[in-house]
């Protein structure tokens, strides 16, 4: 059996697609951590990564993408330590950073060809794949114009296209829908859900609606730590029977906000209709069906 073990291991390397994050930390100074003792295992499918600004989402994603090294811990992709062997990850990675730029003097086609070369892919079919991606992302008309003349949303779509260039097995999207109009957001979701069966997709956002429609699993982060991780239904269970709606006077809103976790407010006949989370609801409240946004707010406010 021992003799077969290396063979089984190498076979597993080809079969499975698994990312293991083991106790990683990113220390900036003596007492300042971007990420602290973070562990998680991610399998094929779409993982939605939620967290408020400064939660450490981008720090984590940059470490997975090999552009930043953890201070402690290891990251394994199919049992390969990518902290040591970054190129193993780079060959399989598609990465869209949160805040990225482009070379304004290149057009979209040239930029994507350049990106393909950097990722180590090419061949005679590269032009075809780039054209297909540009068509899918609604950029084909502008493909020969300098990227410097593109709008923010168009640049974002060029970024998405480059992440999908090399037929990646692990795709990281850090705030991918920034700058996209509602129609493009829907288009983006449709585009990537197609890949969920083949690869690991990590989708980071602080906008819950970007995540709840497509993510198979959800992880919530805060202050560099993982608060919870699981399928959406399980996470929502944490606030079931705690979400209520009531109508209050505007004058009372300030004190109400201090006592309860307010999810949203809408104006109604000069008063405020408030959706809130509480274990002890006020008198005239109506219980509502909880959703991911409620759970996310509850978890980040109470942890």
């Amino acid at each position, binding site marked *: 059996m021992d003799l077969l073990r290396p063979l089984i291991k190498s076979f597993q390397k080809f079969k499975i697609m698994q990312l293991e994050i083991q106790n990683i930390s*990113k220390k*900036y100074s003596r007492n300042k951590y*971007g990420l602290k003792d973070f562990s998680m295992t991610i399998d094929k499918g779409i993982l939605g990564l939620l967290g408020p600004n400064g939660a450490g989402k981008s720090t984590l994603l*940059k470490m997975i*993408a*090999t*552009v*930043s*090294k953890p201070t402690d811990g290891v990251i394994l992709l199919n049992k390969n330590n990518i902290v040591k062997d970054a*190129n193993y990850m*780079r*060959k399989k*990675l598609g*990465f869209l*950073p949160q*805040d*990225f*730029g*482009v*070379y*304004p*003097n*290149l057009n979209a086609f*040239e930029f994507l*060809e*350049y990106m393909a*070369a*950097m*990722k*180590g*892919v*090419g*061949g005679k*079919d*590269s032009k*075809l*794949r780039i054209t*297909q991606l540009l*068509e*899918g992302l*609604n*950029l*084909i*008309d*502008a493909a020969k*114009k*300098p990227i410097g*003349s*593109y*709008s923010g949303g*168009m640049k974002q779509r060029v970024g998405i296209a480059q992440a*999908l*260039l*090399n*037929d990646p097995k692990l795709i990281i999207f850090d705030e991918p829908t920034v700058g996209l109009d509602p129609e493009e957001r829907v*288009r983006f979701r449709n*585009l990537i859900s*197609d*890949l969920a069966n*083949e690869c690991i997709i990590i989708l980071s956002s602080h906008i819950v609606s970007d995540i709840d429609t497509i993510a198979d699993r959800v992880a919530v982060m805060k202050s560099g730590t993982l608060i919870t991780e699981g399928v959406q239904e399980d996470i929502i269970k944490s606030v079931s029977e705690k979400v209520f709606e009531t109508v209050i006077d505007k004058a009372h809103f300030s004190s109400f906000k201090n006592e309860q976790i307010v999810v949203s407010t809408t104006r109604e006949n000069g008063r405020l209709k408030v959706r809130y989370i509480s274990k002890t609801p006020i008198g005239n409240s109506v219980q509502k069906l909880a959703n991911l946004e409620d759970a996310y707010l509850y978890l980040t406010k109470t942890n």
Partner: protein
Amino acid sequence: MKLFFKTIKYDYLQRTRSYAFLITLCASLAIAYTFVPEPNANYSTIRIADFVGDYNAAWFGYVTAIMTSVFLSLIGFYLVNSGIKVDIDTKVGQIVFSTAVTNFKYLFSKVLSNFFVLLTIVGIVFLMSIVLFFLYNNGTSFNLFQFIKPYTLITIPSLFFVSVIAVVFEVCFGRYSIIQNVLFFFLFSIMMVFVPKTEAQYALDVFGNKIVIHEMEEMVRLVSGTNEKQDLAIGYVLGNTTKASKFNFNGIDFPLIFILSRLLWMCFGICIIALISYFFHRFDVKEHLSTKLKSRVNKSSIDKDISLSQLTKLKTNYSIFPILKTEILLLIRKEKKWLWLINVIGMVLLTLVPFKMAHQIGLPILWFLQVSRLSNLVTKETFNNTHYFVFASYKPLQRVLFSQILAGIMLMLFLSAPLIIRCIIEINYVALSAVVLGAVFIVLLASALGILSNGKKLFEVLFFMITYANINGIKFVDYFGGFQTEYTYILKLLILVCTLVSLVFFMRRNQLKNMT
């Protein structure tokens, strides 16, 4: 008014809180240390025929003030000539101009911010000059006034005017940084060769040092008992180790007209700013252009859904040629197309002018014209915010960095092709090797300084100084074999190139490791 000063303060802080500025300060300190040579040093900075001044307070004060005025005017322009550009790139300018600020107030605040940045460096040099006095003085007493007077009347007005010129050029030539750089280079050279004939004409000397040099020459004539014009050397002259005679220099009494002229230069600068403020674009030009372009590119209407899993699969291809091709494309497109005309003219001149002139003057100038291309070579990832893509690419050192350096070398060799061909025709292999190694050296220097400082300025300033020194025939900084013809020189250059290669790859590897 309070708001105006706050604008200057924060602009100043923004510029000085950078690694590049810290390096500049350290470099200034090191350079200032050499302004007055140690008594047994084998170089001189200011020397009139065989005479240098007694090492008293006046000599230290005046020499360091003159050297600062000349050198900081030269490099200072390149340090501060991007104040408005930064506001364009960061889009802070648009925010500023959505307030009630006037063009004049904004531009004048940029002048003052430039001036304070340069003044900080002057402060460091000033302190170093006092330290030098206490290190090397010949037993004479310390007189602070002999330091304050030349710095106040020579250095400070010069730097104020340079601060003005930097803003004027930015307003007039916008994003054409290459025109700004070259034009200042010529302006500086013209001002340096200007020789006043009368007392009134000294007022026209913007650097304010000619009057002091003239007085020094007069004193030397008096001491040596000759009426002949004295051979003046200003700048770093190496190897003149013959024991210099001393003359007693106790400073000069500046004529009233000169003192007034220094004030007038500053007022003149303010007037120019007031004048150009009428033409300032208020950050509207670029927006206007991009709106025009956007209207063209926004009309994308195809709405074809695709299935990513069905897309054509790409093959593994680790060839660096596609990267190299794009790197060359980026280098070519870095500046406006019509500026290539200047390069073509330069190449034609390399073909037609006498070989020596082409090699010693034509080549360094033509290469210097590529300064913004070279400084952008390995820093464009940072400035264009594409570093996540580049640094997460497959083998970023062996493939991307190598391609970048290779593209830079190819550009420099292409520009020097006429000279290379002439070397081959003349069977001058030393010159040929030197030109090739020079191209490699300057590209590697740009890469090393770009990675080290994570910015462009350090290389741009140094390249300017190296070019200026080469045009003035200083052998020490000859990196392309214009003045050296020995094989040992080629060997030294080769060693330098090898060292730089290792350094560049080592620093980039560290940069990749330490990315946060």
